[in-house]
């Protein structure tokens, strides 16, 4: 191939595996030589189908893998809402549903699978659905709105997910499974029985060992199922019927193109996932390597990597996959791994069943009792992270393997050292050695990035590695406090300390430093809500807080009056302009929709602020680890697209949280529609209007480690939005580390964003009313720091250039002109004033 000739790679299908293929192609440099065109039939880019059910809680956007709708690499083109009608392998072209034609050099089929709908009478009546795409779920939700009962045909993993969804939509829900137990592929009879007890306790009605004969019709719609046991044919009433009876590979394109397909469906591929045509590849659920279909995402990802490798000339091969599964179904842990059904010759089973606790655990061990072959866990799958890698690595079992599944309170929780080659993350094939290697160079792996079930194990591997290096994870604040900021926060709250002296005497050593003093000052400010310069607290503050302004490189300060939501009157603008002009200040518009005035000398700050306060301005807290701004777009008042009044909401929130001291600066944003012009998802808390209310996103950060905010809760009314925000902010303020912004704070929580949702939305800790009350105290106790300072001669006395010559400008401060404004000019060294300068009498 000529290096100058770019080739075209077409990917058919933009599901999880197609997306993964493109990611790998970009990361491994395949796009250096290939233009990639991805054709996806769904109207939106790839999303997390594994977490499909959470669509009802968080909406489509939160599931998206590509919220911006495009890849960072311009050589990748995404055609959505488009199907491929026909492939011509001889001409290497394909025809699109929009009539267009594409030529390819290499073609990757990632068309996935389709739900299997048993051909029973009535299966295609209105009211019958499948459970595969966001559109399916939207249709189910719509149908459920006017329905009372629902039934799911199929009691497998996905069927139970669907049943849970119907139940959550308020329907009386039946599950019909042909096999004698639920999840027949993953668990045995005893495990299925345990699972059934949990599921029935939640209010679902189970019918196992029963075949669906027909969907019963009434008035042209589905009305129920005929299970063959009712005289009138209506065994189970169901206004909504969801078929979840397995999936079939989507191989129609390949079939029509004359590629080899398996007898039972699926595109036949070799170990490199190449089809019978050397320029066509197939990955994921549409492909059947060795004639076998893998209905999980992890093997699909592995196939995608193999094809990228092959196209780069590598020798990677797909030789089968770990079909282990762990999931949480309706709050019930279910895991199945390795030889779960003890099919190995001589395999022994070791079972712990606790009907009271609703726990069933089974280990399958080799005949000699030395190796773990597989297992099933229902009700408590916490041991999965340790057990599954033991199967793949063949590590020798401890003498009392039952300890591995006993509850910790009964002597269980045995620690087993994993060998380096043990696969920790099966979704992304990351071994313990990969994680350790990444930890050693502060790198990253994909471990935990897909299903997340291995995260606790990943954390343990990393901690073990650090411990082995003699690096304890020391979270002491500084030499004066052997505690974290959170522990300090709790100690101050419990003991009711009101000063640094009390805190350091009770919990620390020495006299503090530039790390712990501002931290204690911030904790005291969060809890007491008193002036940061009062009660001797000025000496604790960093220079920005100490002088209520931002120090700049020549020792002058910048001044930022608050402009809530970025809304300002012409008169307000004129005042700021006049102040800047009269004091010779450099002006610049900030990213937070306000105006920064630079070059104020320390002794000028009170005079500048007197002018601003008199004109109705107040501190913007640009100097504090505190709320900065709540940015807004112009919203429904002016914008023809706006659906909510984003400016009003931004102003309300900025005024509510102004002055709130936090571990790091806090920023908010409110957008009046999904176009997101306020860039709210770049903020610690971002709010985006919907037709029904507001979506609340949290954990967005700019800076050196940018992060997009993720959806915490959707379609909230004003009151609920504010309540969740109150809780979120105070939960962060109470538990984050010093200088830890919201994104890393969320990541640091066990459970991450889900944990935040539990605490903030579900109120799992019962802290909600306490956090709301604390915020209410903040709101009522708020006072403008600059106004208070101007009214207090003691506080004002600190704003002087020289204590004995308060009106003499510091000669070190010099300026030069640039683009019509003054900017700092640095001296070469200490500057000596002429001796003629009058020095005041000591006061």
């Amino acid at each position, binding site marked *: 191939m000529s290096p100058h000739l770019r080739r075209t790679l077409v990917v058919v299908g933009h599901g999880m595996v197609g997306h993964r293929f493109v990611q790998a192609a970009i990361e491994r440099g395949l796009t250096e030589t290939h233009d990639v065109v991805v054709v996806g039939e769904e109207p939106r880019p790839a999303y997390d189908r594994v977490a499909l059910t959470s669509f009802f809680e968080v909406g489509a956007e939160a599931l998206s893998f590509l919220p911006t709708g495009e890849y960072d690499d311009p050589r990748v083109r995404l055609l959505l809402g488009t199907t491929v009608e026909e492939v011509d392998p001889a001409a290497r072209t394909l025809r699109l549903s929009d009539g267009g034609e594409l030529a390819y050099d290499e073609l990757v089929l990632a068309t996935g699978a389709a739900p299997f709908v048993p051909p029973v009478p009535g299966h295609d009546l209105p009211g019958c659905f499948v459970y595969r795409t966001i559109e399916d779920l939207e249709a189910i939700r719509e149908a459920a709105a006017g329905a009372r009962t629902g039934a799911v045909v199929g009691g497998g993993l996905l069927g139970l997910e669907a049943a849970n969804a119907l139940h959550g939509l308020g329907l009386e829900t039946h599950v019909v499974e042909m096999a004698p137990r639920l999840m027949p592929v993953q668990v045995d009879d005893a495990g299925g029985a345990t699972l059934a007890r949990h599921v029935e306790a939640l209010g679902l009605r189970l019918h196992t060992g029963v075949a669906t004969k027909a969907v019963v019709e009434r008035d042209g719609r589905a009305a129920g199922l005929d299970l063959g046991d009712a005289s009138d044919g209506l065994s189970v009433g169901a206004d909504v019927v969801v078929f979840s009876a397995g999936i079939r590979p989507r191989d129609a394109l390949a079939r029509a193109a004359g590629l080899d397909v398996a007898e039972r469906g699926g595109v036949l591929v070799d170990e490199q996932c190449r089809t019978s045509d050397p320029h066509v590849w197939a990955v994921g659920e549409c492909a059947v390597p060795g004639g076998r279909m893998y209905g999980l995402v992890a093997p699909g990802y592995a196939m995608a990597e193999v094809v990228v490798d092959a196209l780069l000339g590598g020798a990677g091969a797909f030789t089968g996959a770990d079909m282990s599964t762990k999931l949480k179904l309706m709050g019930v842990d279910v895991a199945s791994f390795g030889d779960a059904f003890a099919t190995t010759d001589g395999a022994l089973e070791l079972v712990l069943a606790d009907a009271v606790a609703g726990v069933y655990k089974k280990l399958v061990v080799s005949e000699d009792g030395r190796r773990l072959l597989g297992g099933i866990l229902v009700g408590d799958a916490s041991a999965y992270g340790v057990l599954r890698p033991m199967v793949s690595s063949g590590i020798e079992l401890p003498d009392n393997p039952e300890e591995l599944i006993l509850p910790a309170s009964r002597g269980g929780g045995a620690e087993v050292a994993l060998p380096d080659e043990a696969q920790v993350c099966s979704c992304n094939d990351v071994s313990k050695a990969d994680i350790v290697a990444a930890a050693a160079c502060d790198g990253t792996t994909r471990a935990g990035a897909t299903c997340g079930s291995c995260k606790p194990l990943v954390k343990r591997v990393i901690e073990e590695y650090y411990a082995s290096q003699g690096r304890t994870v020391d979270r002491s604040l500084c030499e004066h406090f052997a505690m974290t900021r959170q522990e300090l926060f709790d100690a101050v709250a419990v003991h009711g300390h009101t000063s640094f002296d009390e805190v350091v005497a009770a919990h620390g050593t020495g006299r503090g430093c530039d790390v712990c*003093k501002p931290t204690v000052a911030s904790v005291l400010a969060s809890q007491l809500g008193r002036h940061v310069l009062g009660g001797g607290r000025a000496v604790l503050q960093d220079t920005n807080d100490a002088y209520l302004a931002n120090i700049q490189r020549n*020792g002058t300060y910048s001044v930022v009056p608050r402009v809530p939501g970025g809304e300002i009157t012409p008169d307000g603008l004129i005042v700021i302009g006049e102040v800047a002009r009269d004091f010779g200040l450099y002006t610049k518009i900030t990213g937070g929709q306000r105006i920064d005035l630079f070059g104020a000398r320390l002794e000028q700050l009170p005079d500048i602020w007197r002018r601003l306060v008199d004109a109705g301005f107040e501190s913007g807290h640009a100097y504090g680890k505190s709320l900065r701004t709540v940015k807004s777009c112009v919203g429904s008042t002016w914008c023809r697209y706006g659906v909510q009044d984003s400016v009003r909401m931004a102003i309300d929130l900025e005024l509510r949280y102004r002055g709130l001291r936090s571990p790091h600066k806090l920023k908010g944003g409110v957008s009046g529609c999904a176009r997101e012009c306020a860039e709210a998802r770049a903020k610690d808390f971002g709010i985006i209007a919907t037709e029904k209310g507001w979506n609340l996103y949290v954990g967005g950060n700019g800076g050196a480690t940018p992060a997009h905010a993720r959806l915490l809760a959707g379609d909230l009314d004003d009151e609920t939005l504010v309540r969740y925000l109150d809780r979120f902010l105070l939960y962060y303020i109470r538990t984050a580390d010093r200088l830890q912004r919201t994104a890393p704070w969320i990541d640091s929580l066990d459970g991450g964003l889900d944990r935040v949702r539990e605490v903030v939305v579900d109120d799992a800790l019962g802290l909600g009313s306490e956090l709301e009350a604390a915020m209410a105290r903040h709101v009522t106790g708020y006072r403008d720091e600059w106004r208070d300072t101007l009214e207090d001669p003691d506080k004002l006395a600190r704003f002087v250039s*020289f*204590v004995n010559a308060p009106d003499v400008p510091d000669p070190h401060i010099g300026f030069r002109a640039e683009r019509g404004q003054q900017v700092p000019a640095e001296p070469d060294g200490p500057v000596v*004033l002429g001796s003629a300068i009058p020095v005041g009498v*000591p*006061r």
Partner: protein
Amino acid sequence: MNGAVDGAVSAPASAADVAAYTPVCALDRLPREAGVCALVDGHAVAVFRTHDDEVFALGNYDPFSRASVLARGIVGTRGDVPFVASPMHKQGFDLRTGQCLDDAAVRVPTYDVAVRDGTVLVGPARESPGEGP
């Protein structure tokens, strides 16, 4: 050199010497664990008072940031060393010697200082203030 509040200085200065010092402010203008900037013979001098009421004086000029700001730093201890952290980039300076605690090659000038009758007085720069960067 440092002076204890209304007590003897640790390196005793004669009454005549102290009489020649520049009075800069009343002691109560200088809170514990804080600094103020004073103008002494045309020089910007940072005067600090520690938790145990000792008073120290350093040049106010921070050689790292090249700005006259040290008096605005946070005062505390590193081990047993009373120190100020520059408000710009947090380098620590030993209040007793002016030695930078984060860079052995950097030291800021120190000044004699005393407290008499509730007034803080700053004397001349010490003989060998050390070299700047």
